[in-house]
């Protein structure tokens, strides 16, 4: 046998081992059924939906990590995503495999026991895509169904990947990125529908929600968030302004299994200067309820009619059954950029109450207790006149923003990352505000301001008694999602780089760990081989990178109570044959 042949043989033997090992690890990963997604509440080992369960509570019944032992939590493994742009994704865990995304919608499948990379999907990115990205090349995560992993690369595409190999199975164009439509949210799977929204409110898009068949990728329905002429609500837009009015749908939705309602938040109006689109502007800055099978709008609730301050309403609502003033209410709760926490009746959109989450809100004199409609303070409305209005509270980044708060049903507490800050706004003159596809259509200049020593306040709110319970302050804004557990813990991260755990009852800080870069993503928890883990992505980027300069980085951290050398965490194929791009053998 000559040398060449022996090398070939060795190489093919090596490839075969690779494939075999790959298959033995991956054969365990079952397809994700619709029932799996519906019954996620009872499945404590996985984290299958964006908010763990369709109601988006970000609550886990796991109790192994609890207030008594949480200070023993330590990093078990970490994974560097390999670039320095911000990380905003919620990881999903299914059958021992973790799926994360990084900036530019790279997708990684990792062995959830030890961080070994199984595959990595790199989407093509047009070189001038940055010309239509308002808020960084961020991505907020994937969705799972069957043998597919769904992700929306930034340039308004929906891609389905084989969950075992990361190969593209199909891809669909959602809209034209050159006209300012981009995609940053995690898709939402309901039965056989994959539902996606779009970003682009700063570029004068007309927002929409689309549903694709989960298997074939065929488009099932499109629902615009701004009605066309002849559709109800178009009269809330003067002339042709509805065509470029914004109402983007850049975050994921929430689903109520009992009533088959899909809830989706909408963003700011375009241009930001509200004077140029007089009227309520349905459905900007609103919550919509839709039928996920047809896309038909059941009802809408507008948080900020004729929004003039970029107060997007895109944070998905949390669904919970509460008792308020002696009445049982099927509630949808949302914490809004406009500074208020809203409780609605999720069956019909009826307003229950709104509570300020921060101090000194001044864009409105108050909220009508019957209808929920704000009484706008005209002095705080910037006009198309070149004059600066300030201070407006909250600033446009909001009393809170897109990242999911959590709801602890044991206590009835919503744990909300809030930010106390202000802004100035200066509207341009009308002649300087014209629409061009794919160009900024804000018509406004702004500056955010801090109001004191601290901006970030993680607050617990007793939803049923309408009472604030505790507050953890930070000098920098909070921009990460929250996780709460039945064992009585709250986890989140801050821009200083700390992931921390607090007692959900008292807000007492129990543990923290410095991850090395600002945290803008949401923590999750899962269990494997009888052990509970906490995972979070750390990496400054997105909007916070506008307001301070801290080290950038991009790392997934997984924490547990055991050290790496014990149990399954140590396992994994770390031998040279499994190392991508290792040096060739000298022979």
């Amino acid at each position, binding site marked *: 046998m000559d040398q060449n042949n022996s*090398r070939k043989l060795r190489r093919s033997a090596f490839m075969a081992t690779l494939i075999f090992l790959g298959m033995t690890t991956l054969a365990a990963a079952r397809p994700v059924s619709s029932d799996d997604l519906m019954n996620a509440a009872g499945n404590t080992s996985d984290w299958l939906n964006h908010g763990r369960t369709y109601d988006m509570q970000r609550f886990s019944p796991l109790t192994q990590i609890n207030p008594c032992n949480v200070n023993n939590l330590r990093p078990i493994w970490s994974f560097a995503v390999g*670039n*320095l*742009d911000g990380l905003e994704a919620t990881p999903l865990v299914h059958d021992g495999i973790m799926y994360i995304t990084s900036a530019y919608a790279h997708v990684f499948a990792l062995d959830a026991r030890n961080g070994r990379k199984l595959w990595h999907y790199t989407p093509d990115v047009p*070189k*001038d*895509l*940055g*010309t239509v*990205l*308002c808020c*960084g*090349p961020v991505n907020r995560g994937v969705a799972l169904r069957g043998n597919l992993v769904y992700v929306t690369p930034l340039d308004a595409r929906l891609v389905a990947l084989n969950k075992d190999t990361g190969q593209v199975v199909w891809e669909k164009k959602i809209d034209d990125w050159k006209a300012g439509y981009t995609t940053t949210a995690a898709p939402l799977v309901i039965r056989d529908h994959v539902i996606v929204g779009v970003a682009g409110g*700063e570029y004068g898009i007309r927002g929409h929600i689309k549903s694709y068949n989960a298997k074939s990728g065929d488009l099932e329905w499109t629902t615009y968030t701004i009605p066309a002429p002849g559709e109800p609500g178009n009269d809330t837009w003067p002339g042709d302004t509805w065509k470029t009015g914004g109402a983007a749908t850049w975050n994921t939705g929430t689903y109520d299994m009992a009533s088959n309602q899909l809830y989706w938040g909408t963003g700011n109006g375009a241009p930001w200067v509200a004077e140029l689109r007089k009227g309520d502007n349905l459905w900007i800055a609103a919550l919509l309820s839709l039928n996920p099978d047809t896309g038909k709008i059941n009802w809408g609730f507008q948080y900020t009619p004729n929004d003039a301050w970029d107060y997007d309403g895109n944070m998905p609502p949390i669904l919970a059954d509460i008792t308020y003033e002696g009445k049982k209410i099927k509630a949808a709760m949302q914490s809004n950029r406009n500074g208020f926490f809203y409780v609605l009746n999720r069956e019909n959109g009826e307003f229950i109450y709104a509570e300020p989450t921060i101090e*000194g809100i001044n864009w409105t004199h108050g909220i009508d207790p019957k209808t929920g409609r704000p009484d706008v303070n005209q002095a705080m409305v910037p006009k198309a006149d070149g004059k600066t209005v300030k*201070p407006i*509270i909250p600033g446009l980044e909001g009393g809170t923003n897109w990242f999911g708060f959590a709801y602890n049903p044991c206590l009835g507490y919503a744990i909300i990352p809030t930010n106390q800050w*202000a802004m100035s706004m200066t509207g*341009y003159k009308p002649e*300087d505000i014209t629409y*061009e596809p*794919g*160009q*900024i259509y804000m018509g406004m*200049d702004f*500056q955010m*301001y*801090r*109001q*004191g*020593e601290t901006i970030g306040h993680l607050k617990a709110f007793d939803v049923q008694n309408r009472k604030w319970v505790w507050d953890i302050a930070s000098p920098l804004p909070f921009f990460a999602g929250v996780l709460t557990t039945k064992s009585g813990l709250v986890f989140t991260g801050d821009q200083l780089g700390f992931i921390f755990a607090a007692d959900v009852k008292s807000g007492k800080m129990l543990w923290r760990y410095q991850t090395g870069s600002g945290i803008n993503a949401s923590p999750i928890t899962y269990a494997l081989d009888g052990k509970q883990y906490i995972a979070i992505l750390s990496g400054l980027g997105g909007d916070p*990178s*506008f307001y301070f*300069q801290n*080290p*950038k980085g991009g790392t997934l951290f997984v924490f547990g109570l055991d050290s790496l050398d014990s149990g399954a965490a140590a396992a994994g194929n770390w031998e040279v044959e499994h190392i991508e*791009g290792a*040096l*060739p*053998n*000298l*022979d």
Partner: protein
Amino acid sequence: MIIVNPSPQVPDRSRYFNRLRNRLRVWPWNHYLLFRTRNLSAPCGIGVLSLVSLVAALALLSAPHWALAQSHSPKKASLPREWKYQANPFAGDEKTIHEGLNLYRRRCKICHGNRGGRGPNLFATQLAGHEFLRAVMEGRDGTQMPAWEDKLSEEQVWKIMAYIIAARS
């Protein structure tokens, strides 16, 4: 209400941070060069270097073709470019400065802000003339700075520059 940090009074540190960021982007290599090599005694340093080159040479010699092909990532050739104008044709012209302002607002401000943001403060950049033009047209690979050559004409970029220079003074 007290505004603690109104923007004009905040010292602009974006240049410092950009330099830092530029350094960080190539970490750990220049970190290694900056901090480590200094501590290595010369013979030891040479030893490390020659070992590295020996390994590299061996790797190259013995690497099968596919491995070599993979290790060559295509690099964008940085060709000299021909520009229409040798100097800014619009410098100081009121009307074009306003056009430049509007272009800046629509195309650049979302990242570069009034004093930096996701990108450096362009009112303090050291780049001028063709260097600036080139940075804009080609973008910066591996950063969020996009290539504008399909979106903006050379004239438009000169207008943006005219505005930036006017706004500086």
